[in-house]
């Protein structure tokens, strides 16, 4: 285990009222694995990762509780307690990140070579010329043809897919142990998405990085994840190995989501099943199961309190009071 997040609570104090964005997020990341985080937009995927990286705009945002331990030689270090400077050392150093929209995370006035070399000089204390050499190698590695010349190009001279490759190069430049990719392929075409997935998987194997891959597309998850977190209403509702999640989903939301995606059932002659209703209103504090208004299995306990993550098997947890398979309420043994 190299990262453990416990009961993370983040809120935004906006004009419309308090946005209860994260309501106790729990998960762990093992070395070298690919952890996919899925959920609809607004479910808190980005806010979770930004909270870890110290990127929440404050105000209006505020991290109101929880811990996020980054383990180094089994020594835990709480990311949420670090100073601004210490966080910056972690960000881009031990944890690399890739965002959905590469153009807004690249500096438009600086050549991309410089942007990559910069972070190497800062985090790895390399010399100018070493950094340049490493950068060119890295650009080649992420599939940018003519890397030597492209070193001096500006971000706008690249296409969307190429920019995302540059972002990947920056993310892995300082040999991080973790790379967080926030919907890195959502803005790209399917054929380019396939290229990018392949690239990240190859780099991950080569460098032994753990990857947190945020997406709203369950099909992408199936193709590349080891383990999956399903998020809903600012909470983790299911945490399972990828095969278990697809073969044996436990949370009613996951079950519904799997039925709603195309292609799961072969040639789509029949109707897709949809989850009726809308995602929860985050302007209210969660006091019950966030899925209750849309859940077909809802019963009185669901309204009484927020369900905790309950272990189903050793590597499978779901935040639901109901055992859908056996049609009985679940015995509530909280995880450790």
């Amino acid at each position: 285990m190299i990262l453990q997040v416990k009961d993370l609570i983040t809120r935004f104090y906006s004009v419309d009222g308090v946005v209860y964005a994260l309501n106790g997020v729990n998960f762990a990341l093992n070395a070298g694995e690919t952890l996919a985080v899925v959920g609809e937009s607004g479910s808190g995927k980005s806010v979770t990762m930004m909270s870890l990286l110290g990127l929440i705009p404050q105000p209006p945002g505020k991290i109101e509780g929880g811990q996020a331990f980054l383990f180094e030689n089994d020594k835990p270090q709480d990311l949420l307690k670090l100073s601004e400077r210490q966080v910056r050392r972690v960000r881009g150093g031990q944890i690399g990140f890739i965002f959905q929209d590469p153009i807004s995370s690249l500096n438009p006035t600086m050549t991309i070579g410089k942007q990559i070399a910069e972070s190497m000089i800062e985090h790895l204390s390399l010399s100018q010329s070493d950094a340049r050499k490493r950068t060119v190698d890295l650009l080649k590695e992420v599939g940018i043809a003519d890397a030597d010349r492209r070193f001096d190009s500006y971000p706008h001279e690249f296409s969307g897919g190429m920019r995302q490759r540059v972002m990947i190069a920056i993310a892995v430049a300082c040999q991080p142990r973790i790379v967080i990719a926030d919907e890195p392929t959502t803005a790209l075409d399917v054929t380019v998405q396939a290229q990018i997935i392949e690239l990240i998987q190859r780099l991950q194997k080569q460098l032994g990085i753990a990857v947190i891959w945020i997406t709203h597309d369950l099909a992408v998850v199936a193709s590349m994840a080891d383990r999956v977190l399903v998020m809903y209403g600012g909470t983790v509702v299911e945490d399972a190995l990828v095969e278990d999640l697809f073969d044996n989903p436990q949370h009613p939301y996951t079950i519904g989501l799997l039925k709603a995606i195309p292609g799961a059932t072969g040639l789509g002659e029949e109707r897709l099943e949809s989850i009726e209703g809308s995602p929860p209103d985050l302007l209210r504090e969660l006091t019950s199961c966030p899925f209750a208004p849309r859940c077909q299995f809802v019963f009185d306990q669901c309204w009484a309190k927020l369900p905790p993550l309950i272990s189903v098997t050793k590597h499978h947890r779901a935040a639901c009071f109901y055992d859908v398979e056996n049609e009985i309420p679940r015995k509530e043994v909280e995880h450790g």
Partner: protein
Amino acid sequence: MAVAQQPVSLGDDEYEEQGAWQRLAYIGRLLRRDRGGMIGSVLFVLIVLTAMFAPVIAPHDPLKQNLRAAKQPPAWTEEGTWEYPLGTDNLGRDMFSRIIYGTRVSLTVGFFGVLIACMLGLISGLVAGYRGGTIDNVLMSIINLFLAIPYLVIVVVIASILGRSLFIVILIFGITDSPLFARVTRGEVLRIRQSGYVESARSAGASNFRIQFDHILPNLIGPLITLATFEMSAMIFYEAGLGFLGLSVPPSVPSWGNMLAQGRKYLDIYPWIAIYPGIAIAITALSFNLLGDWLRDVLDPRLRRSR
């Protein structure tokens, strides 16, 4: 790095109609988050109230001379009295009352000047932006020509030719400032014309008239009000400048510019005669600018949810 804003989704619950009070409360909350906007709008309200209730607030007739009490210093200096809180000018007129009445002149010039500029600019900008082609080219050439001439120079030239009257000052400001409004309007029209909802209206069969009045015009209000606020502040400034040069309203009228001009002669001995109108101008300009900054953010519906 921006976080995508997700609208807070609606439940199936009863929808409460937003009453006037809720809206006011919302504006109040918006104001509380932005100190500049808060200060700007409070000052703005105070200034407008001052202009409206000038006769009630002012302790003296601003025109009444009292040579025996001339050049009295402000109340908090040793020789000052509370009879004349801000002292008197060289003719013994009460500074405080004159400054209060001066608000009326400044606001009148600002308001009507901007109104004229906005009307002219709106019409020409709308036509240029919406029709495009030759009309657009011709109108934009004229506008750019206007904008290329140093503004104050034309104003001074025209004012010195046409003579001193409030009406003429307003007219000059209105006309010379209209190209700016035209340019902003045109830019917005070009943007809105490309927007999805105009395309959607067109695909529903809407006429050009309908698109201009129902879709483009309402969406121009925000940017134009913002610009108007800034331009009012500029006009108030320029009016004072003209007054200082002796080119604005007749010298008998208590305007801040005229007061500045009078005070200039006594700057070394009786500095308050020039300083107080100067401060009034600065505060008014500041409040309008702060308000404009805040309005620019608030009136943009794209930003509304994210604040």
